């Protein structure tokens, strides 16, 4: 199935088309989504870790919407990029490690929201459990970027 994906007309178009709207645009949208998603998640993490405490925690709730919108963009563009290279990415442990870090980041971000933003009021004192979640989230997103970027260099 991976091979048939990689040999599909879609894959051929995405990889071989000389159009700037093919591979370059999909890749750039994926980069844009990454920057928005990780940027928003990092800001929530930093605030939970005690930086910029002047920002009311509750006001950061809207950033979770940005995280999920950016994730939707990257799920779509990421799927397109995967189909194009399916025979290469499918068997690659490195690729699935990247996805595992993305999943971990999303789970951490969801847990942070449930723990700190549920019910319309954010806690005044941030629990050490929330801080631990913020650290794991921060590391997970950096690891997702690292493994994602290095996909261009590993076979």
């Amino acid at each position, binding site marked *: 199935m991976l091979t048939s994906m990689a040999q599909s007309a879609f894959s051929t178009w995405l990889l071989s088309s000389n159009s700037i709207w093919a591979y370059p645009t999909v890749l750039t949208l994926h980069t*844009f989504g990454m920057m928005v998603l990780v940027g928003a998640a990092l*800001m929530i993490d930093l605030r939970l870790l005690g930086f910029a405490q002047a920002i009311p925690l509750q*006001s950061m709730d809207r950033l979770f919407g*940005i995280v999920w919108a950016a994730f939707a963009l990257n799920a779509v563009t990421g799927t397109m990029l995967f189909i194009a290279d399916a025979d290469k990415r499918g068997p690659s442990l490195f690729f699935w490690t990247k996805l595992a870090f993305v999943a971990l980041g999303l789970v951490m971000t969801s847990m942070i929201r449930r723990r700190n933003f549920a019910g319309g009021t954010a806690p005044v004192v941030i629990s050490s459990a929330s801080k631990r979640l913020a650290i794991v989230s921060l590391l997970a997103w950096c690891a997702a970027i690292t493994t994602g970027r290095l996909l261009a260099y590993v076979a």
Partner: protein
Amino acid sequence: MLNLANLADLAHVHLLLNHFPTIGTILGLGLLLLSFIRKNEHLRKVSFEVIFLIALATFPVYVSGAAAAEALKGAAGVSAAAITAHNDAALGSFIMMEITGFFAWLALWRMRRIGRMTSGLTYTVLVLLVLTVAAVARAANMGGDIRHPEIEGGQYAGLFGSSGSAPGLISAAGIKDYVLQHPYVWPTCETLHFIGMSLMFGVLMIVNLRLVGWLRGMSFASVHRLLPFGLMGFGINFITGMFFFIAASEQYTQNVAFHWKVVLLMLAGVSYLVLTVYDEAWTLPASAQAPWPGKILGASALVLSVGVMYFGRMLPFIGNAF
């Protein structure tokens, strides 16, 4: 893609811009000293703003210098050794300039926050600036040595080629060799470049969406606290980006995507300075809308930063970078 400049144009751009750091740092130093004599804090703020802007303007000076060196390749009466020596001196002074610009920015950020200039940062900037003026003047002087009509038939040793250059404190050729001979350096820098970009954009997103009016519930003064993280992200990307540029400058000097990236980066830098010292927004309460100039500033800063990312990602597709 609209072409901005060719190699010969860029050599002219270098000749045009290369006076900015020399004159700008001396002007900044003059204003800073005058602020001590007059005990005028406003003047001190202006001098720090000038220093930041000159640090920003030094970036196109350095990168256009690489284009000028390529344009002069093999030209009669040009000393390759002098180009290498000038490049090394310029790189050293460029690094000094950026460190000074960073501390000037930090002083401005602190001043906005606590309402007065702290003397520790002020004297740090003063000392760094004096050193920078000396380093920039030395680099400029060595730049003047490059075109010597009497050295007819001088062999050009490659842009950052090591032959003929006296070993100095900083060697662009050494950095280039290091990056190209260690296969892990480029991918590591790329990874850090993406992490730095995300950190920087996270800050820009919150601060500018607040100005635009979408993220109300935060006062501008509270999001102002995040600005050093944005600059930290920029610092990561500046250092890793310079590794790319020095290691493979020929990929960038003739790359129209890179030209656009530099232009947008300069404008984004100016908007970052405005965000740092912006008086009208500083008093903005959590629930209030920013005045319309603030909204325009926020929207343009967002567009500019996405534009910088766009042209960075498009370097291999619009241009010729790998």
